[in-house]
């Protein structure tokens, strides 16, 4: 099997596995279904890594499915392109799926006997959709995989259909992401009307030839498609679905959503810009730079503020994902290969660290039936190893060298330069500090315990009388549905091992120089507009001058240490001075904006669409 022939298998394999599980899941014992899913996902992961290694120095594999190659640069064939960034994300998706499946072995109660295969089947379908999205070289297929990814994710978010909150979160998620999907399709329709093509490379070539004619149409199409991807990326003001979905989704699903699915939205915007619009005069580089930078700053600041204000641990981690998405957008806005390699390493490191933090939060759910920072104050002292992991994860999130997050942050700072450096340090310190505050309070009993009336169990009784008890807009993490049959007395080995392995992977990203040079080469070809078209349409490789291999710079190390120190100081200060549960009054309007009302969220998303259009014009 050649590398190109392996590409369809990476998508079709997990999809077939899901179909088998759906068909036979009814009769399978649970462990058979779980092992089968892990083997399928693991085989796909091994294949993705294998193809990635085999093509690291060679030609980019391109597969025209069914042999339907374009004639004279036109055609309706479906193409899969395994370039460095795309294949790398496929490998990341597959590895993370395997970890999430292993984590979920001990995580769920036995499902009802007639749907043993449902959860692993959904996860495999999710994997197939994400791999398809990263590998496709066709804009319409990107839409189809986007929607498949969405539909499976709504089902996974609302997996515990017996839970009132779970179905509500899944519904909000569904409304916003589907609306984003339709915006993509409208944009695809306009691009097809203008160029008569659906492939990324073909549309790009036609736009190149068109010069500045029909600038308005091209801009509208970019705004519509980019809006869809930014909804998935949870950029403010399209982000409202993400905290709700993470609050209610089962923890293994959160690991996948926050670890990689959200970042695929950022990838979508970058892929769209470089393959389709980068060479056309109709969409100036400054306009895209301005739009990404403005949205990125807004996202990073909003995410960091709300992250600091949360008491629900999973919701806190969700807002930290939003903050980091903002940082990814700020870095990408520079639109250089260095920015792409910095962002790619940041995404890799972030995936490991964030998934590890969610894995630790899931252990809290299993042990205490709660993820509320105040209710759990001091109760996690017997889970010391988990506490250590959580603390290290918080420091890594703040950018402590030599974690991959630290390297990615340092490289992104270098690429962005100037005042964004302050933003990178402040935002990563705030998110890391919030995690450290939780770690200090919950696992080490630091700071003053909350007063009795702050304990959610005391207010929980009022809550049944009506919503008035929660006039002060916030989501507590008490009364979390238990996901194991009995409350576990210590962290189950598989869950703990998954968390530790993920954190170690996040560390490895910052310590393996061969990975850095591979990412740098991948970023060079990712940002090469005409090279992509040549590779896909004419199977000819151009040899680019390589960008310098990224590495740790003294300034990057110093800034990483500074962020980690700032995070620790902030957490220490919060634990020592601010009484638990008191949140500043100025934050109320921002918190009220997150009203839990799908209609409000849709209105904000439409306003965001207008904002993006204004920024691009």
């Amino acid at each position, binding site marked *: 099997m050649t590398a190109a022939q392996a590409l369809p298998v990476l998508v079709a394999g997990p999809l077939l596995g899901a179909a088998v599980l759906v068909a036979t899941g009814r009769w399978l014992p649970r462990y058979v279904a779980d092992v089968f899913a892990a083997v399928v996902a693991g085989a796909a992961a091994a294949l993705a890594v294998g193809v990635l290694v085999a093509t690291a120095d060679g030609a980019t594999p391109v597969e025209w499915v069914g042999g339907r190659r374009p004639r004279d640069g036109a055609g309706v064939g479906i193409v899969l392109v395994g370039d460095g960034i795309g294949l790398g994300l496929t490998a990341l998706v597959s590895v993370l799926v395997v970890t999430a499946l292993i984590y979920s072995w001990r995580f769920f109660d036995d499902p009802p006997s007639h749907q043993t295969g449902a959860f692993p089947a959904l996860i495999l379908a999710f994997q197939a959709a994400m791999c398809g999205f990263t590998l496709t070289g066709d804009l319409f297929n990107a839409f189809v995989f986007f929607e498949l990814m969405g539909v499976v994710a*709504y089902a996974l978010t609302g997996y515990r259909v017996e839970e009132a909150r779970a179905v509500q979160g899944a519904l909000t998620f569904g409304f916003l992401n589907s609306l984003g999907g339709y915006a993509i399709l409208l944009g695809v329709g306009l691009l097809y009307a203008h160029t008569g093509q659906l492939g990324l490379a073909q549309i790009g070539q036609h736009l190149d030839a068109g010069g500045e004619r029909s600038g308005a149409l091209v801009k509208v199409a970019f705004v519509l498609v980019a809006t869809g991807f930014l909804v998935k990326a949870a950029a403010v003001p399209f982000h409202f679905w993400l905290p709700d979905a993470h609050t209610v989704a089962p923890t293994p699903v959160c690991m996948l959503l926050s670890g990689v699915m959200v970042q695929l939205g950022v990838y979508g915007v970058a892929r769209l810009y470089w393959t389709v619009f980068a060479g056309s005069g109709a969409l100036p580089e400054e306009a895209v730079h301005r739009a990404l930078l403005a949205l990125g700053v807004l996202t990073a600041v909003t995410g960091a503020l709300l992250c600091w204000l949360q008491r629900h641990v999973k919701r806190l981690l969700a807002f930290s994902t939003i903050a980091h998405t903002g940082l990814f957008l700020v870095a990408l806005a520079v639109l250089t290969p260095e920015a792409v390699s910095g962002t790619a390493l940041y995404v890799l490191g972030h995936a490991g660290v964030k998934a590890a933090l969610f894995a630790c939060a899931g252990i809290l759910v299993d042990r205490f039936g709660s993820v509320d920072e105040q209710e759990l104050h001091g109760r996690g002292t017997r889970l010391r190893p988990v506490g250590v992991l959580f603390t290290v994860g918080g420091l890594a999130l703040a950018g402590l060298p030599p974690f991959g997050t630290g390297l990615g942050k340092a490289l992104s700072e270098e690429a962005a330069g100037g005042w964004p450096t302050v933003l990178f340090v402040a935002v990563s310190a705030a998110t890391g500090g919030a995690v450290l505050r939780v770690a200090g309070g919950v696992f080490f009993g630091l700071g003053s315990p909350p007063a009795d009336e702050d304990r959610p169990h005391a207010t929980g009784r009022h809550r049944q009388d009506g919503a008035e008890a929660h006039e002060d807009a916030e989501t507590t993490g008490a009364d979390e549905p238990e996901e194991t049959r009995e409350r576990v007395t210590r962290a189950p080995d598989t869950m703990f091992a998954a968390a530790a392995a993920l954190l170690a992977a996040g560390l490895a990203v910052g310590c393996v120089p061969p990975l850095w040079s591979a990412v740098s080469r991948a970023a060079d070809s990712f940002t090469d507009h005409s090279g992509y078209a040549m590779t896909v349409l004419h199977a000819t490789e151009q040899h680019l001058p390589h960008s310098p291999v990224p590495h740790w710079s003294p300034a990057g190390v110093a800034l990483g240490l500074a962020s980690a120190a700032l995070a620790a100081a902030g957490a220490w200060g919060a634990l020592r001075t601010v009484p638990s549960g008191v949140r500043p009054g100025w934050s109320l309007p921002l918190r009220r904006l997150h009203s839990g*009302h*799908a209609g409000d969220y849709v*209105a904000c998303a439409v306003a965001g669409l207008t904002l993006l259009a204004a920024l691009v014009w």
Partner: protein
Amino acid sequence: MSVLPYLVAGWLFLVGCYGLATSRNLIHAVGSLAVCQASTYVLLLAVGYRHGGTAPVFSDIRPGSRPVVDPVVQALTLTDVVVGATLTALLLALVVQVSKRHGTVDPDELRELRG
């Protein structure tokens, strides 16, 4: 080429968004989302329309003998219909569960996830 279908597509998308934003009933909201989706059908079919063209089925006409509308957008629309059916079914199933668990389908009364 008439501009009207494009204006209709834009109008449908906006009116669907308006319906979603102001909805007082989740079933109505799912319907509004379907209206948004209808705008994509109208846009795609308008893109492929050719004046005087017929259906791109060559069983009874000789290829090249008369103009046909673009079959590609019709394939895209069909795919879109399938996506929409899946989505509507899943969202309605979730609404049924919301109704069972919360005892209401008014989004104004679902206020647990906030801040």
